[in-house]
């Protein structure tokens, strides 16, 4: 691997690692907030217990999200200094404002965790609200920077190539920002919900009889599936919007995503299959006639540009089609799944869910996390060879430093180690405090402060 490839691999894996924890850091606070709210409405103590246990999980995840985010922020400058020169001049604003979101989340997370027993109920809900707000703002703001890389605006280039007439706010609200930010948030909330649903389903499968712990998990499951359903609907609708932005602003990315070579109206939507750039066609895909044209422009006769319209050296890599199909496939599947469970419950009533359904639900969380990874790698790789679309190539952005391979190996090893140890720590923490025991202690309020440590 040359230094450029190593830099890309190193940076991509740092982000891929961070994003797992960061996405849950956006999604879980919403679930905690909902559980706190439900408790205020229903006065059912199971919901405070949920909030408490999820908060503990969130605190452990933050322990990884925060330093890994710091890594990403510093590596941006270390590995892509020429890109960051542009960032500093044009799109520094979201990075800057994001700091305040970080402060908001960090301050109120500590307040919620370590001062819960000293806060009034209102102040407690308010602090968990600020945690959720801080996390969501972090996600939306960083997306502004990424969206700007896809649709750079807010500056002019002088004849000598220097950047002039910078308009920071215009860069901030670049054309693909609204769709992307909303999509990132919906998909993060959806992921938080499906991860909780997976765990609840797993726990329900383990229980022999329908006792108090079973009901506790069932409540958690239904809450998370309700949120999961709403958020996956939102994700899909907004993904449609994001696709339309692609059609207008980055047509070759959409063409690569769909493996479309010939420009055409009445273009079909292709799912699955492999792009063959040699033969210039898509192999083994399922095609839904006219659908791509409709998605791109809301009309079946919309003309969608194919890759052949673009110079070959600006084609995005062909695997972006696979990534895109997987993201959409997972989104559709989970939406149907969550809808089905609620439908089932509504038709059959009662609290019984068949075991095969529970088994199916256990994969929702991991799939959702995978979709997040696919989506991000798609947006970043689909932009290749550009770092700043049509302005700066990735090969122009990279550092001149050599010897990156050592760092790549070191960072990857640490990431693998931390993935394993985080799962292990979570399991051992919750195994020490099984739900049966905590349900038994529910009446004794005094334990709360100490428990949260």
């Amino acid at each position: 691997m040359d230094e450029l490839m190593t830099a890309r691999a190193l940076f991509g894996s740092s982000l891929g690692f961070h994003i797992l924890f960061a996405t849950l850091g956006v999604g879980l606070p919403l679930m905690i907030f909902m559980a706190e709210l439900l408790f205020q409405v229903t006065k059912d103590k199971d919901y405070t217990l949920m909030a408490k246990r999820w908060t503990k999980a969130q605190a452990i995840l933050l322990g990884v999200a925060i330093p890994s985010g710091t890594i990403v922020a510093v590596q941006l400058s270390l590995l892509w200094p020429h890109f960051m020169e542009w960032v500093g001049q044009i799109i520094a604003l979201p990075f800057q404002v994001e700091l305040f979101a970080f402060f908001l989340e960090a301050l109120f997370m500590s307040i919620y965790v370590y001062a819960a027993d000293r806060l009034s109920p209102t102040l407690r809900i308010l602090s968990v609200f600020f945690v959720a707000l801080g996390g969501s703002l972090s996600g939306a703001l960083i997306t502004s920077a990424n969206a700007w890389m896809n649709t750079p605006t807010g500056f002019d280039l002088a004849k000598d190539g220097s950047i002039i007439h910078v308009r920071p706010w215009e860069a901030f609200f670049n054309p693909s920002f609204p769709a992307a930010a909303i999509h990132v948030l919906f998909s993060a909330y959806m992921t938080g919900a499906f991860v909780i649903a997976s765990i609840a389903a797993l726990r329900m499968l383990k229980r022999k009889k329908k006792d108090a712990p079973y009901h506790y998990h069932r409540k958690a499951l239904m809450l998370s599936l309700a949120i999961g359903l709403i958020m996956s609907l939102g994700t899909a609708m907004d993904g449609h919007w994001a696709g339309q932005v692609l059609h207008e602003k980055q047509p070759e990315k959409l063409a690569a995503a769909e493996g479309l070579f010939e420009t055409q109206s009445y273009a079909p939507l292709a799912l699955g299959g492999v792009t063959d750039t040699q033969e210039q066609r898509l192999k083994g895909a399922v095609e839904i006639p006219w659908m791509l044209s409709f998605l791109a422009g809301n009309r079946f006769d919309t003309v969608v540009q194919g890759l052949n319209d673009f110079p070959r050296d600006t084609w995005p890599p062909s695997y972006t089609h696979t990534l895109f199909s997987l993201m959409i496939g997972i989104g559709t599947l989970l939406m149907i799944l969550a809808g089905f469970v609620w439908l089932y419950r509504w038709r059959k009533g009662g609290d019984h869910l068949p075991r095969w359904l529970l088994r199916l639900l256990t994969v929702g969380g991991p799939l959702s996390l995978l979709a997040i990874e696919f989506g991000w790698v798609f947006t970043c790789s689909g932009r290749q060879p550009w770092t700043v679309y049509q302005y700066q190539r990735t090969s122009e952005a990279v550092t001149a430093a050599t010897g990156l391979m050592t760092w790549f190996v070191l960072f990857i090893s640490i990431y693998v180690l931390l993935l394993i140890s985080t799962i292990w720590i979570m399991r051992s923490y919750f195994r020490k405090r099984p739900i049966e025991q905590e349900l038994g202690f529910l009446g004794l309020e005094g334990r709360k402060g100490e428990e949260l440590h």
Partner: protein
Amino acid sequence: MNDALLAASIIWLFVFMYAILGSVDFGAGFWGMVYSQKEDDRAGALANRFLSPTWEVTNVFLVMLVVSIVAFFPAALSQLSLALLVPGSLVLLLLLIRSTFMVYAYSAQRFQRALSVVSGVTGLLIPALLVLVLPIIAGGFIDSRTGQLLSDKLFMSPVTYAYLAFGLISELFLSAAFLADYSREADDEEAYVVFRRFALIFGPLTLFIGTIAVPLMGEQASWLRINIEGNRWWFFASAVIFFIGYSAYWWPTKGHHHRRGVPRAAFTLFILQFFLASLAYGVSHLPYLMYPVLTIKESVTNHNTFITLLISYGVGMAILVPGFYLFWRLFLKDKRYLHQE
């Protein structure tokens, strides 16, 4: 004041703030590790009680420093990134290990001891490595052809070790001085005695190492040494303030005859001492961001972005003030938190 100087002052302010906050944070982690050996040690418990709610907030200050350098001095990045790749990546790895293991240690009873040793020791190294940025940007350790760091030369040079030692000792000093004050706030005389002792040991050492670092700067950074010597009265004033602060550990306390010293006054004066000394160091460093290739004037961002950034700082800070106030009340002031058994 022009944009470049104002931007440099803001960065300097952030460096100073993080130097204090980071030292206290990483140092508290180290003391927490040392004193959690024994089951019922109050000093360790106190250090951890301070650390659990604050480390995330402290980390944001580090991010703020990095983000502000990118925002204010974008043109400096290609040079800086080459020079700092090695120490920067090392710090990142250590930081990842330190924070995760610290959080793990709160959550896992079984390996608590091992986890907290790892996070305590890595935390001790981070400030020392961060301080290495200073000799690197003062010049002489960069390959003028490739722009990359000459690691061998850096690690053969005595001044490197002076800076390293300075980072390490001042971390221990500042955190001990802070924790002495925090113990007093918590009415914990037992812990106070422990941290007061360490503040008394490491204080003069910090001053000593700071003084011997200057003549060690040698050939490469003679420009800086000359400037520093030109500003010697600032450093002298800072030393005087240090001694006044030091003496505060023997000042009488009203109404409590068995308690010795006023740690709040001591810590405040030490901050003032660091403020003066680092201001003098910063002024001596002008006009260079990195000697001899980067001056602040050539690296500063355009005026529009600069103004927008200033406004966003103002608005953001104003919004956050109540949050910081609440945080301070709950964790640094509230006796119910400080005094937990």
